[in-house]
């Protein structure tokens, strides 16, 4: 399968901006932007988000993973409820899972209380939600491909070798 080169570069290029991507691929910046627009239109490329180290003071947030059991509905299955849950700002990601529960919901909040009250007041009171099991995250070791708190030591690579 031939992957769109712009999409490939988005994945492997890390922090390249459109101008740099244009240079690498030998396209104009405008062409890169229209490629990106097209990918957005096709809902393949959804957008840019910073990857933050949430254990740092200035980016601090409380995160929880919640296993949710819901009642599927005739016609729509899990979709209507899953979408409804997904719309909350607190919800970072929401997945339908196989196994012991139905939805895995990643929730982000400023404090323990805020996350707790979201679960008890919003999530668990939705009709069709049968049960929730909330797990608070204690520490992150890897975030979206970035290793946390691992000191990247100089690997001693020589500057010129044959």
């Amino acid at each position, binding site marked *: 399968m031939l992957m769109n*080169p712009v999409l*490939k*570069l988005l994945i*492997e*290029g890390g*922090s*390249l901006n459109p101008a*740099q991507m244009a*240079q*690498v*691929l*030998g396209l104009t910046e405008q062409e890169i932007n229209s490629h990106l627009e097209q990918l957005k239109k096709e809902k393949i490329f959804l957008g840019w988000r910073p990857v933050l180290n949430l254990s740092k003071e200035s980016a601090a947030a409380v995160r929880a993973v919640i296993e949710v059991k819901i009642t599927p509905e005739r016609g729509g299955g899990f979709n209507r409820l899953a979408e409804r849950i997904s719309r909350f700002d607190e919800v970072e990601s929401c997945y339908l899972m196989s196994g012991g529960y139905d939805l895995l919901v990643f929730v982000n909040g400023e404090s323990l209380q805020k996350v707790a009250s979201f679960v008890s007041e919003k999530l668990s009171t939705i009709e069709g939600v049968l049960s929730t099991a909330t797990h608070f995250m204690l520490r992150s070791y890897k975030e979206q491909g970035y290793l946390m708190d691992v000191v990247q030591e100089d*690997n001693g*690579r*020589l*500057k*010129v*070798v*044959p």
Partner: protein
Amino acid sequence: MDTKRFIARHVVDLPKSGIRDFFEIVAKMKDVISLGIGEPDFDTPWHIREAAIYALEKGKTHYTSNLGLIELRRAITKYVEKVFKISYRPEDEVIVTVGVSEALDIAFRALVNPGDKVMFHQPCYVSYHPSVTLTHGIGVPVPTYAKDNFALTAEALAAAWQPGCKLLVLNLPCNPTGGTCNRAQLEAIAKFVVEKDLLVLSDEIYSELTFEGEHVSLASLPGMRERTIFLHGFSKAFAMTGWRIGYACGPADLIEAMMKVHQYSMMCASIISQEAAIEALLRGEDGMKAMREQYHRRRDFIVRRLNEIGLKCHLPRGSFYAFPSVAVSGMSEKDFALGLLQAERVAVVPGTAFGANGAGFVRACFATSYEQLIEATDRMDRYVSGLRR
């Protein structure tokens, strides 16, 4: 006391690698973007490193058989058959070595009598000629040219041939030019080899990094298997330079001869590296392909930029080296490289480090990040347009 008088004559006479001098200068400078590094910028994929850790945990800390672990030799022959279409017996036609460098060294030591002549194409990897000299052989360089995209031609071979030539060393794709040969060119070379009754040492370390067209191994051509020692390793394709692990495949008699030299000098390659190499062959293909794809995109970028700048550069079909001409600067490759380093802090390697036929060219390795490549070529642009003014 004059300790130098103890040094063997042929070592005294051996020139220091031109790359070494350049390295000394670069090492003392700060903020240099180096396109002078002949190795992948990627660290070894984690699953391979993890396999080595596991091997240590299991107590794999002992010698292995001189030829190398049989599991590794089996994995090698399977891989070579699949990728290069040549079949070897794992029991007696493969030897695992400390990188291709050792494989070449023991091949020369096993094959070269004093005064035997060894042909190799040039510009070429820095150690071929000295390795021949160290075995009291005589190096016979065969020029390759930019007009042929640095492919070796049978004509050039015929022109360089002299009585007494016994071996031919091939390195396709080539460090430093990225040049390689297509099937027709290899068939012409094969014909020449048979005609002159040569044995070929084929160093195919960059073969996985062939970007378009097929990589053809000389040993896969009719009649060539018995005339070829196939040399390969893990350094480039699997980003494993520091592990020092490679191998040679060939007719059993020749492997046996190499094994004699190997067993009295190296004994065996590091068992940890051998264990890692097994993992690389069994599960490393996807990671290798992903790296190749990135090199491919980087190559397209740097070659286009170099040509825009006026540093005329052919499209290297393999390896991670661009080998542009510096003719536009009106300078020698050494002055150009030094000037570029001092003015813009970009390191490239003067072509003459790879033999006299590299005059007028520099080697720019593109195994580095997109950001660095963009910045380096912008700096080169500034440098070259400054010279033109």
